[in-house]
């Protein structure tokens, strides 16, 4: 069975198993893991098992709950993770628990081979989704961190100084229908284009070959935050706005 070990500066404070009931963490003494520190809220967080995985949930604490280095509202726990509340941390031991996920977080969920297209609607399929969602939660930080991809114009003649990328396809050019509209004589209708794909935003050529950080790109290249894009006398920065 999985267990949680409350630690303070390498000293073991208390150890509790995780059963069917949630494990309460907080300053109030009636918690399963009481943490005597003013930085910790009375009822700070809780840990429970759900659909074969361990979940930590922050209970709107003032100073937050951290898993490893990330502040979380809710996150799936893996063997070896550390939950931080104030200056205390809680080690997660799920080694005896075969149903929790392996620690890699990068592997596809092992499941029977599926050839037929199907919707996730039976129980087995729901479980598969839940496992996947659990892995997804690792990258889902506390609310308010949603980031918007944005092009900031550094120099050049355009109709706006900043563009938020909302479409699957963003056209840069003189065309009336271009998102990033170039102004001036001899500018191409379609200078370059940006395609939003599952793994990021790709800049590709139009009638011109654009450059990323000074290097010309003949075919689509994925943009990284902070990249400088140059095309047809226009310079822009690709960033994620909060």
């Amino acid at each position, binding site marked *: 069975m999985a267990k949680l070990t409350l630690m303070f500066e390498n000293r073991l404070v208390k150890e509790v198993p995780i059963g069917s009931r949630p494990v309460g963490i907080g300053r109030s003494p009636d918690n399963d893991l009481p943490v005597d520190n003013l930085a910790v809220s009375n009822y700070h967080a809780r840990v429970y098992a759900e659909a074969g995985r361990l979940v930590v949930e922050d209970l709107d604490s003032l100073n937050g709950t951290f898993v490893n280095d990330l502040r979380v509202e809710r996150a799936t726990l893996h063997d070896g993770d550390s939950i931080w509340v104030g200056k205390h941390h809680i080690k997660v031991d799920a080694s005896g628990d075969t149903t929790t996920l392996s620690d890699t977080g990068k592997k*596809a969920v092992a499941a029977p081979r599926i050839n037929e297209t*199907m919707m996730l609607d039976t129980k087995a399929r729901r479980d598969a989704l839940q496992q996947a969602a659990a892995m997804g939660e690792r990258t889902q930080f506390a609310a308010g961190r949603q980031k918007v991809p944005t092009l900031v114009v550094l120099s050049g003649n355009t109709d706006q100084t900043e563009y938020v990328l909302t479409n699957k396809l963003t056209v840069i050019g003189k065309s009336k229908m271009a998102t990033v509209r170039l102004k001036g004589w001899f500018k191409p209708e379609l200078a370059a284009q940006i395609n939003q794909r599952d793994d990021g935003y790709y800049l590709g050529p139009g009638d011109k070959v654009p450059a990323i950080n000074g290097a010309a790109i003949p075919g689509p290249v994925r943009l990284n935050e902070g990249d400088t894009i140059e095309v047809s006398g226009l310079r822009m920065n690709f960033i994620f706005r909060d």
Partner: protein
Amino acid sequence: MQIVSGGVTNVGRVRTNNEDCFRIVEPLNLFVLSDGMGGEAHGEVASAMAVEAIVKHCQETENDPAMTIFADMPATWSEKTKRLSSAVHLANKSIYDAAQANPTRRGMGATVTAAWIDGTRLSIAHVGDSRAYLLRNGNLQQLTSDHSLVAEQVRRGILTPAEAERSEMQSVLLRALGAHPEIEVDSEEHTLFGNDVLLLCSDGLTRMVTEPEIAGTLQAEPDPAKASERLVQLANEQGGADNVTAVVVHIDSERKGWFSWLRGGPRNTAQSIGSAGGK
């Protein structure tokens, strides 16, 4: 814009029935593709219902523009985008109702990827893991997001695209027509440029044929009907594990204006010879 199109659907080399379905409605420049799912023959029923419902709604709204638009649509969308999105909502409802009415049909569903071209504006409505691509200046750009589990995992940074391609969970959809009475439809508008090539295809193509191969085929074959045949043939040569469908649409700039008249001379008579579509 001058529009020429062609499409092919094929059962593949492993399956015994074809659950894919597509329709090209030339006078409207409407293109609809659907991939059905569900046991027995129900996948075929579902995809046919999806295509039928969407085409019917779009045709009716052409004759009666006052028809209701369903669900909330952003005011900035064009009339056609709203109507296409409404049509997908309607298709979902009809498949859902049919599945509920007949217990043996429970679980039937369908993907849909639909494109409607009006002048230089392209409207897309999409649910599921069929895809729309736009080939422009040699770049093959995906206009739709797969509503599949693995694609969602890539978006969340859990899988890399390469890992997703190897995953055994590729067939698991998070969204499809017919599963719920309400559905979220992805809709978007794009501006078309001369020489753009639009491709609608089912996952039977994209799982067998790589994107560079698709781009190469679309560039090498100037005839859309032959290009779609060639793509289906490639998918079958490389396994043909699933039904495979490809619809290819060429958008050619209309040569008009004094400059092209000077270059090419008046060409109003010969314009549509050899073209299947056009407007």
